[in-house]
């Protein structure tokens, strides 16, 4: 080819390929493996919590360890399991659904993954260095200050989450730009698949919520490491300020988590009902409205703080308002199924199981939104039951649904349906067994975050049932892992459209897709682009361009080292009080921290001065791929 810039770019293989990849499909798989690993860690912590609580006055773990398990379970599940698993699906699917060859910033995408991973690893290193964070996942001041948390546990929390949060933030910006700028011809906003829409709104929420967390964590870090006075009342600080900052991030965060799950459910239910999603435009509207309202309700976590009746009433009403767009979605899913020819595949079982479960979580949400009633529920197991219904019963069922649905697209192999259904029933029954009963435990007065309880309070049987349920969920997860392993040994022979009723663009290309996704960018002629072509009697999409060489970004090891640099910097600053002085009064820890930051800035420098010309995949290679997969 007569290209002005024919650069030879090394295309790695093996481990180096995974460390340097900027391909969104491989980054999606990396997110899935890392998020899956942390999901197992967080799940193990949950099982240990339930074992401790299965009988009164149990002494299975010490009270201190229990606090660590409780804190790390919540933090791990939210930041290191749920978010990355969503990013896994978003990476694997969104570019394909909009007909793009890549994301807008492949390098930044990779950087987002590595900063998340190193942040998560830093957080979990705490288990081996003398104590994990133990101030709860919300890390309220003054408990999280040095007076009451003198060891390094909460330092790991502030620095680990800060680093992981950077990754999430830049990942969000990447998806926003990808969806705005990289859509195929004809893919207007109101033709975008629902999952892409929810990924879009979620990314916007990430953009506006995570910087608040970054400031909160930085302020808490200054309090702990440099004796600042943000949240320390003896220095004039304000402990309630932390609650405001945390929840102004924390409440949008729960919508960041649930919206993509809504997107998955919309795709799966529509595909397996063989019907257009009912009320598509109202779904889009509801998603935007939920995203908007999500920023107006943070103080409903603080009803008992004493903000006064006016504030409580306003936040109460704003919270209840969210039930309206959520209700729109629930009815749309039901009407999509109505009259459809429904196939109960594993993916669809998870989606259909999601609907009533999430409704229950929503109903208790409205109950909690009533401020006077909340004074009764507050800090009881009722709250625990509520948020596990929306997060496990909503988000995790959604992720399982999405994984079963898109697994063939990601790996070229369809998961075993028998094992999948076993996974669903075990997990689903286990889930309701664990958490349904906790509503009543809460109403009977069992407080949350307690290490143990006395005999004769009427809590014994219910706690035992809850623990049995937790084990069932554990078995469900093991069945899923078993399914993954068994499927990995099957031949890679999934067709492009394994469910045969695929409606969106990802099902028009091979499973797994080639590196460049689309040999020819497709022309989108309507909503449910592929389904439209099918109903018009066409075999595939109309191409929007002739076959030609495709420009690809170069792989890069820099993101890995930037993550590593942040990890080193975090450790250094954290131990600045312990590691003595290097020379004079200059602390060794600061030296280590500065080295880490120099690695980060050095990588940024290299990224800026070295132009990335990328490389071209030539026509012959594309034609060869087309011939081989036809």
């Amino acid at each position, binding site marked *: 080819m007569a*290209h*002005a*810039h024919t650069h030879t770019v090394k295309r790695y293989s093996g481990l180096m390929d995974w460390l340097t990849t900027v391909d969104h499909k491989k980054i999606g798989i990396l997110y899935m493996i890392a998020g899956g690993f942390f999901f197992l860690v967080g799940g193990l912590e949950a099982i240990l919590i339930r074992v401790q609580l299965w009988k009164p006055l149990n002494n299975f773990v010490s009270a201190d360890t229990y606090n660590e398990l409780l804190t790390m379970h919540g933090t791990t599940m939210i930041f290191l399991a749920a978010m990355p698993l969503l990013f896994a699906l978003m990476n694997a699917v969104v570019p394909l659904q909009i007909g793009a060859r890549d994301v*807008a*910033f492949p390098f*930044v995408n990779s950087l987002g993954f590595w900063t998340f991973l190193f942040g998560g690893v830093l957080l979990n290193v705490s288990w081996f260095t003398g104590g994990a964070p133990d101030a709860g996942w919300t890390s309220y001041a003054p408990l999280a200050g040095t007076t009451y948390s003198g060891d390094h546990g909460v330092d790991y929390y502030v620095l680990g989450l800060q680093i992981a949060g950077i990754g999430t*933030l830049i990942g969000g*910006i*990447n998806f*926003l*730009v990808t969806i*705005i*700028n*990289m859509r195929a011809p004809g893919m207007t906003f109101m033709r975008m698949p629902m999952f892409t829409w929810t990924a879009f709104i979620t990314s916007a929420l990430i*953009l*506006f*919520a*995570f*910087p*608040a967390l*970054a*400031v*909160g964590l*930085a*302020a808490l870090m*200054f*309090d702990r490491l*440099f*004796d*600042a*006075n*943000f949240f*320390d009342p003896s*220095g*004039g*600080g*304000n402990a309630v*300020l932390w609650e*405001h*900052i945390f929840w*102004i991030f924390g409440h949008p965060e729960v919508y960041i988590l649930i919206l993509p799950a809504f997107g998955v459910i919309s795709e799966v239910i529509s595909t397996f009902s063989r019907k257009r999603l009912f009320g598509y435009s109202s779904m889009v509207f509801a998603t935007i409205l939920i995203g908007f309202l999500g920023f107006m309700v943070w103080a409903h976590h603080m009803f008992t703080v004493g903000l006064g009746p006016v504030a409580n009433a306003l936040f109460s009403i704003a919270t209840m308002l969210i039930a309206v767009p959520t209700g729109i979605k629930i009815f749309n899913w039901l009407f999509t199924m109505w009259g459809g020819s429904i196939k109960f595949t594993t993916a669809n079982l998870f989606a259909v199981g999601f609907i009533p479960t999430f409704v229950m979580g929503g109903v208790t949400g409205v109950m909690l939104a009533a401020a006077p009633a909340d004074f009764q529920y507050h800090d009881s197991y009722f709250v625990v039951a509520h948020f596990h219904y929306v997060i496990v019963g909503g988000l995790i069922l959604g992720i399982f649904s999405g994984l079963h649905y898109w697994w063939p697209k990601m790996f070229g192999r369809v998961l075993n349906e028998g094992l999948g259904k076993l996974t669903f029933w075990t997990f689903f029954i286990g889930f309701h067994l664990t958490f349904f009963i906790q509503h009543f435990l809460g109403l009977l007065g069992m407080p949350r975050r307690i290490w143990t309880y006395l005999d004769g309070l009427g809590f014994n049987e219910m706690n035992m049932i809850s623990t049995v349920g937790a084990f069932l969920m554990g078995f469900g997860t093991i069945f899923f892992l078993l399914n993954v392993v068994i499927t990995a040994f099957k031949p890679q022979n999934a067709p492009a459209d394994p469910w045969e009723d695929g409606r969106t663009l990802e099902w028009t290309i091979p499973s797994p897709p080639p590196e460049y996704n689309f040999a020819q960018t497709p022309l989108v002629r309507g909503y449910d682009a592929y389904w439209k072509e099918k109903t018009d009697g066409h075999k595939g999409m109309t191409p929007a361009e002739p076959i030609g060489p*495709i*420009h690809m970004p170069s792989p890069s090891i820099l993101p890995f080292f930037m993550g590593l640099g942040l990890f080193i910097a975090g450790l250094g600053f954290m131990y600045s009080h312990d590691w003595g002085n290097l020379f004079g009064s200059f602390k060794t820890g600061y030296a280590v921290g500065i080295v880490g930051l120099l690695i980060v800035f050095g990588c940024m*420098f290299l990224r*800026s*001065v070295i*132009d990335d*010309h*990328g490389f071209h995949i030539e026509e012959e290679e594309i034609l060869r791929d087309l011939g081989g997969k036809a």
Partner: protein
Amino acid sequence: MSAHSHVEGQLPHEPEKATLEGRNKVLGFWLFLGGETVLFGTLFSAFLALRHQVLDGPPAHELFQLPLVALATALLLTSSLTSVFAVHALHTNRVKALINWLIITVVLGAAFLGLEIYEFVHYVHEGHGFTTSAFSSSFYTLVGFHGAHVAFGICWITLIIIQLARKGLTVVTAPKVYVAGMYWHFIDVVWVFIFTVVYLMGKVV
């Protein structure tokens, strides 16, 4: 692909948006600045909540010296103007003028930063240290975050000046200049708010 679609040797109109990569960069940076707005918004909220908690330290109206801060403000606002001239030079394809305006911008930024460091040292001598009170912690955090942004901007724009001198103005370097200009305006706007909320309101007893 589009990265090299222009006629060799001739720069397209608005070179920062001539390629998809450039357009992505500009849009991505606008969004990033949206996130930065929330970041500074949270810092401002924390400062506003804590600014009366001075404990034994000097209160704001005794501490702040408006002539010095006004001078710093004038320097930074002028640097924003010179960065506009730089982007204008970018659009009219005058590399030499572009580099010169960027150098003036960086020098003004460095002067601002010098004044700020002098100011901080002076405050510490007055008994207004980082750990003195919630007021001092939140003051140094807010103004210091801004100062760190200025310092980063100075290093970044310096690096871009070197690249412009070596590589010239291309569809690769143009978006870098453009987003650096956006960044510079942003920290300028943040300073306007700091000047108002921290210093002017601090003078009101």
